[in-house]
């Protein structure tokens, strides 16, 4: 028998189990397996291997689920306890940001007045204003980074 026919049969034996084969291919394979003992043996051993794989089992450790449930509940409790702290931090950051936006025009005039009275060059007091404005953003970014870092360590 042509070697290519065996190769095709071997491919279809695997493909039938892993993906799908067409009705035509299935009919061809069935006919080939009737005529070829070598390929039929291969189909049979593949079937047996899969049957054994499906039948293989693993013993569950005693109390695995209850131990896990307890650990998950303890972790959930920890997370709940930490939640208010996080909320307060975010609230402070948000209030700080809001106040920064609301008071920006007055703060600008304040920096301008201070610059004029102390004789500080304009770029310096403008820089001071930008820094003052950026502080809430820096705090917020820092808080987010710390939180992420913390989460990664825990996980």
């Amino acid at each position, binding site marked *: 028998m042509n070697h290519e026919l065996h190769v095709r049969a071997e491919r279809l034996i*695997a*493909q039938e*189990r*892993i*993906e799908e084969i067409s009705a035509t291919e299935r009919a061809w394979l069935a006919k080939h397996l009737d005529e070829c003992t070598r390929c039929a043996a*291969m189909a049979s*051993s*593949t079937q*047996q*291997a*899969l049957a*054994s*794989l*499906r*039948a*293989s*089992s*693993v*013993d*569950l*450790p005693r109390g*695995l*689920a209850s*131990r*896990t*449930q307890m*650990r*998950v*509940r303890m*972790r*959930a409790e920890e*997370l709940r306890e930490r939640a208010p702290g996080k909320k307060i931090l975010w609230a402070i950051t948000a209030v700080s940001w809001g106040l920064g936006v609301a008071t920006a025009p007055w703060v600008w005039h304040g920096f301008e007045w201070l610059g004029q009275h102390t004789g500080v060059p304009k770029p310096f007091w403008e820089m001071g204003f930008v820094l003052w404005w950026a502080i809430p953003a820096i705090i917020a970014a820092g808080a987010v980074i710390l939180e992420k870092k913390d*989460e990664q360590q*825990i*996980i």
Partner: protein
Amino acid sequence: MMDDDAKELVRGLQRRDPDLLDRLIEQYQYRLFRYLVHLTGNRERAEDFFQETWVRVLERGHQYEGKWKFETWLFAIARNLVIDWQRRKKPASLDELMEPREDATPFEPATAAEDSPLAQAMQRQGESEMQVSLTQLPVIYREVLLLRFQEEMGLEEIATVMSTPLSTVKSRLYRGLEELRKSITEARA
């Protein structure tokens, strides 16, 4: 479109519902533990990863959107934990996970109390052959075979769990099936 159960699952995970998590742990304990045992080749380690996986489910529950089946997400979490651990331990391929430690507890095939002694003996022999054959397989093949033929996952689900292209999943399945067949045939010869 998500059905009501899936929506409820998403909502429960988002609010870290402890009762829901208890139910899920019960429901998926066998499948997840079996997957981890086969992935790590070690029961004690599998148990550690089992617990870690559920802690991660609790912590990351808000990230589950119901786009995939829950088990697909669950297995992906478990797999990532194993890979992260392996990377931290030493930069090496996942294959090294499968080298059984000398002090590791060997696989213990489950026994069915209602079976006859002969049936139990035959089952033990068959399972023992399978365990030997499985441990001889590289993990990349063992994993896809388990997901496909024990978990009955679709090819795309397996690709999602493994974060691997579909073509890679298919090629590993073909190669793995062939290796398993040869290994079992040799074991029985």
